[in-house]
């Protein structure tokens, strides 16, 4: 029996259910799940319609890390910490933006929690507003394309590096296009005591303007272009990266998504495309992506 679903309300082709299931499987269902407000919570915790086969608590939007920290110390006080892993599932808005304070506190105190950010690169549940995880150039309802603006102006915040900077024992990025890799990372995280941060790239069909046919391909291209490098840190040291045999140009990734299509005709689009390629090149140098 599946530990998550079926029958949940995620859009056809949504990426995050794959990640949630893979994480629960990796931990053999020995999980207490804490879930911040967002699409995942909305589609899985309707009254009388629970999707979860593990103990589950919906926190509010900004405090999932604090709630998880509380559960962890409560388990310790009851001497029952060996019964389950405390795992947070939170969106990028909940993680990069509104919940970064409580997450920082959790990592600062090094609570024994696996924090999984499912990164769909915007506030998707409220209809695609930008977050600090939204990539440069993406059109969202709060960064609409107009004469003076070719989508989001700033670049995506590097949350994995921010987690590493807290001195936590484990931080990694992953993608639903590589479920085995993600599964292994969750397992590895569960072997380590202290705070663990895993960020998993999960396409959103409506916000990104793709359909289910493209979900896996788009997620794969994000990795293969160097825009979403898959990296793994243990105790502040980069221990593993996914090498790329032949890195693809960022345009291959961008051109199949509605949120980026204006970049190919907007007068400022060329500059943004160049900047995005530069970011991918920078990632390749920084992590040694090119095999």
């Amino acid at each position, binding site marked *: 029996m599946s530990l998550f679903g079926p029958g949940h309300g995620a859009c056809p082709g949504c990426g995050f259910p794959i990640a949630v299931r893979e994480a629960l499987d990796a931990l053999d269902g020995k999980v207490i799940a804490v879930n911040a407000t967002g699409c995942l919570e909305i589609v899985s915790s309707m009254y009388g319609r629970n999707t979860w086969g593990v103990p589950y608590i919906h926190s509010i939007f900004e405090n999932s890390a604090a709630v998880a920290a509380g559960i962890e110390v409560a388990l310790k006080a*009851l001497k029952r910490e060996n019964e389950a892993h405390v795992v947070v599932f939170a969106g990028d808005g909940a993680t990069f933006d509104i919940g970064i304070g409580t997450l920082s506190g959790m990592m600062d105190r090094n609570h024994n929690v696996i924090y999984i950010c499912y990164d769909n690169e915007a506030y998707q549940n409220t209809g695609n507003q930008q977050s600090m995880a939204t990539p440069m150039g993406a059109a969202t309802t709060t960064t609409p394309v107009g004469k003076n603006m070719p989508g989001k102006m700033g670049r995506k915040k590097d949350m994995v590096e921010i987690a590493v900077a807290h001195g936590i024992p484990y931080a990694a990025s992953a993608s639903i296009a590589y479920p085995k890799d993600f599964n292994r990372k969750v397992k590895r995280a569960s072997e380590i005591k202290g705070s663990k941060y895993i960020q998993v790239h999960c396409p959103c069909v409506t916000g990104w303007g793709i359909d*289910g046919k493209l979900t896996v391909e788009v997620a794969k291209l994000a990795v293969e272009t160097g825009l979403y490098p898959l990296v793994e840190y243990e105790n502040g040291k980069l221990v593993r990266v996914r090498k790329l045999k032949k890195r693809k140009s960022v345009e291959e990734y961008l051109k199949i998504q509605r949120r980026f299509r204006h970049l190919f005709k907007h007068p400022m689009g060329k500059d943004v495309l160049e900047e995005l390629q530069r970011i991918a090149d920078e990632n390749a140098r920084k992590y040694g992506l090119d095999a």
Partner: protein
Amino acid sequence: MVKVKLYIGASSPAMTSEMKTGDWGTEWAFVDEEKCIGCGQCVTFCPEPCIELVEKEGRKVAVIDHDYCKGCWMCYTVCPVDAIRMETKEIYKLEVC
């Protein structure tokens, strides 16, 4: 001392299984059991999940539960041997006259 039961909030099977989301889409996925090699790629990627590997005549094949298939095409795109086809549901087959 009262012990708190840790399984509060969990349900097995999922209570959402009462929501037959298989009526959402206009298409359903079908497996060609002759072609299927039982690799399980579709099982891994189906977001519902509504595909299982089932033992049939001594080998494993993918079986899709149309009560929950949203017709998203994900299984179709990841199958390495093209064993999955998508078919428009009868009620959506319109005749143009």
